[in-house]
């Protein structure tokens, strides 16, 4: 069962050998009783799977309904950003991703037939991080790791070949109809997370739609398996001799698989373009006659930068591609979607446990729309630069590239994709604005930056100590201050006695901390509030605010 039908004529040589998972007859089939789950998740792609794993960490049972019987059959997402790896590390698959993936930090940008790059960039300004700026790994690995992780969560279920075909949304809950090879059945849930991808049937069932732009261009993606000693960097061409007037990209993935990407223009005949001999011609022009390769996946894409107007609709919440779509040049699709998960799971859990008002979920809408808009803006700009829509924009584009040969300033205007960085949730209703003076970097709304720390004499990473609950970081030598209900306070200092020994002084540096500084950190590792002095009353107020205005403490 192929997940994506558009593999085209080269399919005969493309491999699709991921394992399939068995269908298990759900106990609800044929039973008059309608079972109730706190959360049902439509779609078992990376976003749906990660949502289930994250919810399980918060003790919330869920069931994932996945239409097909396998993971992504093409590589699809290959670039996973540092923040994504940090989120996956919290969920327990970050280290697997890192071990299997290809670490890269550098991008080279070429222009025309000049074998020397126009310029190069380095993605990691902060050293001493657990995770690199990016790794490359086929999407199916990311999904397989999450499937395994989910299997180890006793109260969560993943049901293959269960397709969501009906949704009755209400103010009190949702009734979901699922179709299986052996018949249909229904489930009730408090919330339905729609993670059913860009064509989201759930979105259609609710009569909702996307707003935004579709780019009039096609891109041919050929993932090939070959032994090549090309460097593991992102190499991007404007107007290369092997694809004149257009762009191309090559990037290494795990298992000797390489992504090759060709801009094709708007007026292509899909059938023709995907014919094996035509794909061969493109790939050969790039690789030359001597390299042996096999196809792993071939596809032809048009790109869109669009989103839903709102992600939360009563009891149905959209996440990932169902909610927003970007062109892949910033690698912002799955990376953006995993930030949705990170943002949503703890909120949903607090609401379901009655520890926060349902209004907290409105902040998911606000914060992730902000994130989606940032991703859409950056991806649209990159796509506009690569595919100029008018003669004058083409002239500016080419002038920019030519100037970039000679002048550093012009390199900043060259846009071969602005790669995914986490969204700083400036202006979020959950933030408590600064009263004291601090540097901007770890301002309310920013995700925490990782740093090495020592815990009970052992080398660890800061981010592993944060997350899943509200944490107070208290920069002090003395004892932790009196507890604030609902917050676990950790002391940070250069001394051994602290909960977190700031062995390299980097935590204090990143957080612009002085003795007495106190940070309140959300379960998704974003800063909620910070002060120069610890004041339990202020922390309590900020905590209530970060929980959507609730006064109900843990």
């Amino acid at each position, binding site marked *: 069962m192929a997940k994506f039908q558009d593999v085209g004529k080269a399919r005969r040589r493309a491999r699709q050998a991921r394992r399939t998972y068995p269908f298990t007859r759900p106990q609800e089939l044929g039973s008059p009783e309608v079972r109730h789950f706190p959360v049902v998740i439509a779609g078992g792609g990376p976003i749906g799977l990660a949502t289930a794993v994250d919810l399980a960490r918060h003790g919330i049972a869920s069931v994932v309904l996945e239409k097909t019987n396998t993971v992504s059959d093409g590589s699809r997402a290959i670039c996973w950003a540092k923040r994504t790896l940090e989120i996956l590390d919290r969920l327990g698959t970050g280290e697997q991703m890192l071990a299997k993936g290809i670490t890269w930090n550098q991008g080279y940008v070429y222009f025309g037939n000049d074998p020397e790059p126009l310029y190069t960039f380095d993605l990691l300004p902060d050293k001493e991080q657990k995770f690199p700026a990016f790794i490359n790994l086929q999407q199916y690995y990311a999904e397989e790791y999450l499937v395994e992780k989910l299997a180890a969560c006793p109260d969560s279920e993943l049901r293959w070949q269960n397709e969501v075909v009906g949704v009755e949304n209400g103010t009190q809950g949702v009734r979901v109809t699922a179709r299986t090879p052996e018949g249909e059945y229904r489930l009730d849930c408090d919330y339905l997370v729609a993670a059913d991808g860009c064509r989201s049937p759930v979105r259609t069932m609710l009569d909702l739609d996307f707003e935004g732009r579709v780019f009039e261009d096609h891109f041919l993606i050929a993932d090939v398996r070959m032994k090549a000693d090309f460097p593991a960097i992102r190499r991007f061409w404007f107007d290369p001799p092997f694809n004149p007037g257009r762009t191309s990209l090559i990037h290494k993935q795990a298992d000797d698989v390489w992504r090759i990407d060709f801009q094709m223009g708007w007026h292509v005949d899909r059938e023709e373009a995907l014919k094996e001999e035509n794909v061969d011609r493109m790939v050969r022009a790039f690789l030359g006659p001597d390299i042996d390769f096999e196809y792993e996946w071939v596809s032809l894409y048009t790109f869109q930068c669009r989103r839903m107007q709102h992600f939360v609709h009563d009891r149905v919440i959209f996440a990932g591609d169902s909610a927003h779509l970007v062109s892949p040049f910033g690698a912002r699709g799955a990376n953006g979607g995993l930030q949705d998960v990170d943002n949503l799971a703890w909120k949903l859990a607090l609401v379901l446990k009655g520890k926060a008002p349902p209004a907290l979920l409105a902040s998911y809408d606000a914060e992730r729309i902000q994130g989606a808009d940032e991703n859409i803006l*950056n991806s649209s*700009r990159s796509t506009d630069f690569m595919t100029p829509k008018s*003669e*004058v*924009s083409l002239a*500016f584009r080419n002038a920019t590239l030519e100037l970039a040969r*000679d002048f550093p*300033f012009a390199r*900043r*205007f060259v846009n071969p994709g602005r790669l995914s960085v986490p969204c700083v949730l400036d202006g979020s209703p959950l933030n408590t604005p600064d009263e004291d003076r601090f540097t901007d970097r770890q301002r309310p709304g920013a995700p925490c930056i990782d740093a090495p720390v020592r815990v009970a004499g052992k080398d660890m990473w800061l981010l592993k100590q944060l997350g899943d609950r509200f944490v107070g970081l208290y920069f002090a030598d003395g004892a932790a201050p009196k507890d604030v209900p609902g917050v676990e306070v950790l002391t940070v200092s250069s001394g051994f006695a602290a909960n977190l020994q700031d062995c390299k002084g980097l935590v204090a540096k990143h957080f612009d901390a002085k003795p007495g500084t106190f940070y309140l950190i959300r379960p998704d590792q974003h800063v909620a509030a910070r002060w120069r002095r610890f004041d339990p009353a202020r922390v309590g107020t900020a905590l209530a605010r970060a929980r959507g205005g609730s006064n109900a403490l843990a």
Partner: protein
Amino acid sequence: MPGKLRTEPGVADPDAFYARLIELHEGLSQDESNKLNAKIILLLANQVGDDAALQEILEYARNSLKK
């Protein structure tokens, strides 16, 4: 080359500026676009003022087309 010319990045948000510049041309005919560009160049020249720098820019731009 550079004598007088500023070649290090000077625009704070290059992506935003570039996008605005391109948007400015949206819906214009080729003639209108040319005129728009001409006006922008003259305004920028006046803003720069410095004769030597302007001379360098003109020469550089012209010579670069011959490459």
